[in-house]
């Protein structure tokens, strides 16, 4: 079947198109070149004056796994029927799997990636991701506090052995990338430590976070995994943590590194309130180093829930829980997490400055290919706030008007008011489509060139960018129309993106012994079979290129 999308303004940064009017052709779920005047399309959509982009890709959103379910349980009030509607699909912060897929698709997203899949929870996370309709998914494997890796490093293992370990774990858990969450810190928390800096030796394995960080970044490089090490940095939320963030950038010494929710790691401890913006220092470091990319983790005001494997940070935040309830689960295990409900208040100085720091990062980091639009759903805000965030980036007047309503001391503590940059539609298309696909190694997504998967979103160009991005006119997934005028019209299933790097299998005998002795399950049971994911019909493998990055 041939479908023609005629006359839209195409924003496709990966192929150098920035709003030029053109036609797109879709055949069998993929975009094809213009078949010529002789071909008769079976279906034609007249998109004159409309904005056409690839389906958006969320690089960092907590949509599955243990902590998400604990958050749903803890926030049971979000799932109650109300007089307005009996649906128990969940509120904004803890939507059900079904609601997650529908709400993403309704905003024009066709892929979202779970950035914190703990090895022991991987099987469950995959089952849950497969239950999310309409969008592609995948998981980043959390390493860096697992005892096997730390033991390996402490024993003086070489880069090759670490890379083999990481390679095995990625294959076994069917993951797309490697994430490190406060590497070394969570392990130190198990021994009652509340803070661990980059060059501080851990209490049990006697290795520093710097060693773990460089080992993992090196292993990712060695294995040729497209996505750089995805780092949730040190001392999240602590004033003055910018030093650790800059140390992390320096520590990898030119290796590729992705700093996630960097807004939470760009805090200074200066000024009369001992809490200040260090966005300019982080932005300057990122602008200077092409090996560094970031996603922001913008906060937006309102009720949400924070869920993280960083039990050390979550324990520090527990006293701020709103409503007053929180959970630290399995903190002695490899798959521990902390869930703390939180309400970001626009009249609170700290929250207002966090909001401004995030926007400063967006506006000061120059290259839209290396900065990504995220709220660290649900930690900074639910992903449904993306349209409002896009409006804040594209509309300076709106930004200033909003800023005027926040805590009165804010203007003295931020340079946000002086930043005149406004994102263009092309830059939004880059940071939400082309760049995420490129940095994850998804060669056939995030663009609209021939051969690309026909994940396409069509918007009406409205001056109110929030309204524009909130309700796309049409959304196609694999060439099939799934959303029309913001309403889901068809339910389809996405795919699970993975990498399968090559590694030396002799590491498995060492690991099998450790699993038998300590892990409570056999290595053979730990490994997830292809048939377990989407009934064996859902894996999408992406190539690794050792030495290419």
């Amino acid at each position, binding site marked *: 079947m041939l479908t023609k999308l005629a006359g839209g303004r195409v924003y496709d940064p990966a192929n150098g198109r920035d709003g030029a009017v053109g036609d797109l052709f879709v055949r069998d779920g993929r975009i094809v070149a213009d078949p010529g005047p002789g071909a008769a399309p079976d279906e034609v959509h007249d998109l004159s004056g409309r904005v056409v982009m690839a389906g958006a890709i969320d690089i960092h959103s907590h949509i599955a796994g243990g902590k998400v379910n604990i958050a749903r349980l*803890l*926030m*049971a*009030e*979000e*799932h*109650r*029927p*109300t*007089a*307005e509607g*009996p649906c128990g699909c969940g509120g904004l912060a803890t939507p059900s799997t079904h609601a997650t897929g529908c709400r993403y698709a309704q905003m024009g997203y066709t892929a979202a990636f779970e950035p914190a899949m703990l090895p022991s929870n991987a099987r469950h996370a995959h089952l849950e991701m497969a239950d999310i309709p309409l969008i592609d998914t995948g998981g980043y494997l959390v390493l860096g506090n697992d005892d096997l890796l730390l033991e390996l490093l402490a024993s003086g293992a070489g880069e090759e052995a670490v890379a083999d370990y990481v390679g095995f774990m990625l294959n076994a858990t069917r993951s797309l990338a490697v994430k490190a969450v406060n590497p070394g810190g969570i392990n130190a928390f198990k021994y009652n430590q509340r803070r661990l800096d980059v060059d501080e030796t851990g209490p049990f394995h006697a290795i520093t976070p710097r060693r773990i960080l460089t080992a993992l970044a090196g292993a990712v490089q060695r294995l040729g995994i497209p996505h750089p090490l995805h780092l949730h940095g040190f001392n999240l939320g602590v004033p003055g943590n910018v030093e650790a963030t800059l140390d992390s950038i320096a520590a990898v010494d030119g290796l590729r590194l992705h700093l996630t929710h960097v807004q939470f790691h760009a805090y200074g401890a200066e000024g009369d309130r001992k809490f200040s913006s260090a966005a300019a220092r982080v932005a300057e470091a990122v602008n200077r180093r092409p090996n560094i990319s970031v996603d922001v983790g913008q906060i937006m005001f309102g009720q949400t829930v924070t869920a993280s494997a960083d039990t050390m940070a979550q324990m520090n935040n527990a006293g701020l829980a709103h*409503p*007053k*309830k929180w959970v630290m689960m399995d903190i002695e295990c490899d798959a521990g997490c902390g869930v703390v409900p939180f309400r970001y208040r626009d009249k609170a100085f700290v929250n207002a400055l966090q909001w401004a720091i995030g926007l400063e990062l967006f506006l000061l980091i120059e290259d839209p290919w290396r900065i990504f639009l995220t709220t660290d759903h649900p930690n900074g805000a639910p992903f449904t706030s993306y349209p409002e965030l896009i409006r804040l980036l594209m509309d300076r007047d709106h930004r200033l008007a909003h800023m005027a309503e926040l805590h009165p001391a804010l203007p003295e503590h931020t340079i946000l008011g002086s930043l005149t940059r406004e994102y263009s539609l092309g830059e939004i298309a880059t940071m939400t489509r082309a760049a995420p696909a490129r940095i994850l190694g998804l060669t056939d997504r995030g663009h609209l060139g021939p051969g690309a998967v026909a994940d396409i979103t069509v918007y009406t160009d409205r001056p109110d960018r929030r309204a524009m991005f909130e309700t796309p006119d049409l959304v196609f997934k694999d060439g099939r129309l799934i959303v029309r005028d913001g309403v889901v019209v068809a339910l389809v299933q996405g795919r699970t993106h993975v990498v399968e790097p090559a590694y030396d299998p002799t590491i498995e005998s060492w690991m099998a012994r450790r699993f038998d002795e300590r892990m409570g399950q056999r290595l053979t049971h730990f490994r997830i079979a292809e048939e377990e994911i989407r009934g064996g019909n859902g894996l999408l493998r992406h190539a690794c290129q050792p030495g290419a990055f």
Partner: protein
Amino acid sequence: MSSLVLTTRDPSGPPIDMTGVLPERLFEGGREALAGLMLVRGRGRHRLDTLFKLEDGGPPGTLVLHPGSAVLDGVGTGMTAGELRVEGECGAYAGSAMRGGTLTVSGNCGAFAAAGMAGGNLRVAGDAGDFLGAPLAGGTRGMSGGSVVVAGNAGDRVGERMRRGLIAVHGRVGSLCGARMIAGTIVVGAGCGPDAGQAMRRGSILLPQAPASVPSGFVDGGMNDWLFLDLMRKELIDGGAWPSGFPTGGTRARRLIGDRSTGGIGEMLIVSEV
């Protein structure tokens, strides 16, 4: 002032979520608004007038459900004003999150009745299930206002984490009555199951006799004269909340104080040991 009788067309079968079927809608949109309300029954959504026959009648400002049925869940959930009468029994969550008005059930009601209630009156002529006046799922507080009178018995965890208000059960209650209670008053007419008042902080539980085994965190404050009992008795008798087995005069009662294991200074008043 309008009124309406809803006759349940099929009182058996899958449960019906009655959330939103409230007497205040009589004032807001009248009969038409109620008739067009979409309700969940089992896995499907249905218009209210396909599940109930609507007829004018009943006292002004009153919504009557006839006959009641255990399949009717969430009757009076979130109610703020007016009167809702159930002629017969109803299912779980009757009067949950209620903030005002009066809900009357002439039969039994299920679990979580008055859960998360903040105001208004719930009157149950039969028995109530577990979690009467307890928190709703996800909530950190149980009942925070209003009054509940159950003529029959009630299940476990009556008044769990209760913050304010009155629960009176003329019959027996199950285990963990008033557990983790923060404040408020629970009156039990015919005795309670094990672990009453466990981890309670403040508040009062009135009992006809001491529990068979007094929880270990409670200390005996002895027999004393409590002048407030006269005032309280008058108030509760007026509200139909003074059990028939309780003494009709005198101010002496035995007081157990606890739960001291969690630093609590709540009380169990044994009113029949005068």
